[in-house]
């Protein structure tokens, strides 16, 4: 699992870490039931506070991505495929609304937005 933190980024540390772990789970780089590093070893390796990694695991657990068993550790939750896809969709939807809001502020309308997206897709296909 790769976690790279950007210091000085606007996003709080815990958020960066959380998103990267969550991404790894969604991309199935971390398998169901796989054991995650302890909050202490994660903190030591990333040079962040143990309170930060604790918060990350707590929030990931609330969101349903991991399960923590006292005395044993934290594990990737066993999701059924539907829930995973739903979470994935939800993330994209969030980003898309952000893009739409930004477009509005900048005065870019729907048509322009569509054509911009077309161009991006074409570039990707090449």
């Amino acid at each position, binding site marked *: 699992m790769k976690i790279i933190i950007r*210091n000085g980024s*606007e996003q*709080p540390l815990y958020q960066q870490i959380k998103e990267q772990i969550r991404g790894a789970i969604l991309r199935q780089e971390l398998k169901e039931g796989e054991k995650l590093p302890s909050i*202490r070893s994660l903190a030591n390796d990333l040079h962040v*506070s*143990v*309170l930060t990694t*604790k918060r990350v695991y707590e929030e990931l657990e609330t969101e349903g991505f991991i399960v923590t068993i006292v005395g044993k550790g934290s594990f990737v939750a066993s999701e059924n495929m539907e829930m995973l896809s739903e979470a994935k969709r939800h993330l994209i939807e969030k980003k898309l609304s952000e893009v739409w809001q930004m477009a509005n502020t900048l005065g870019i309308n729907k048509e322009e937005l569509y054509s911009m997206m077309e161009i991006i897709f074409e570039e990707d296909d090449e």
Partner: protein
Amino acid sequence: MKDVLEVNNLKKELGSFSLERLTFTLKEGCITGFIGVNGSGKTTTIKTILGLYPKDEGSITFFGKELEKSEYTIKNRIGVVLDEGYFYEEMTLKEMKSVIAPAYSDWDESVFLNYINRFKLKLNQKISTLSKGMRMKFAISIALSHHADILIMDEPTSGLDPLIRDELMEILLNFMEEEGKSVFFSTHITSDLDKVADMLILIDKGRIILNESKDELIERHAVVKGDNSLINESTRKLFVSLRQTAFGFEGITDKADVVCEEMNDVIIEKTSIENVMLAYIKEG
């Protein structure tokens, strides 16, 4: 996270200096850095919670038990490293150990010898011949050889070179890998804390100024630079410390996100623990 140490309204007067109603807790599983300049009260606080200075008022509770009532059980679980060592200089390492080790019910000779080997110390060396760094290593060897649950250290790294300091920080991180351990150490070398601290407590003139998670502290503070025209009554309030010259201003804010939103055309940079400490101390 449980509290392994609770200090409540601790008051201690020492000549012209005094600790004023000190209240803080140490969480289990955390390394808590205790920072402050010389004379701020770090050593006084640590000595008082260890019982070396009898307190005037307040309560000190370790693992849920009051220090005064359960001294023996509590001290068995504390590893201590004091700045001045307080070793009998004429004794050898072996002799000194033979005086201290039997006091602890869980003394682990193999762990001790492990550390001695690792630090390349010689047991029949006289303590007076040790350098400061070796002295600290010896103190650590003893402090970590009786399965202590909490390690309390007063300025363990002062006067030591960066290599040894780094080594010590590694040892602390290793120590923490086991469940249920905690570390509390005072220092004015804040760069050590950048690496290992989970919680930070800032003390100045006998009072606690800050007490929070290191990451949150660093994230909510920032160095801000910009033109003097941007400083007015409302923006001034966003700063803990502010320095204005003919060329512009530079300050430390404790509300980095607000500055981000409300002040345009400023440079916002990540700050270090040292800058934060200085900002609060100078203004205080």
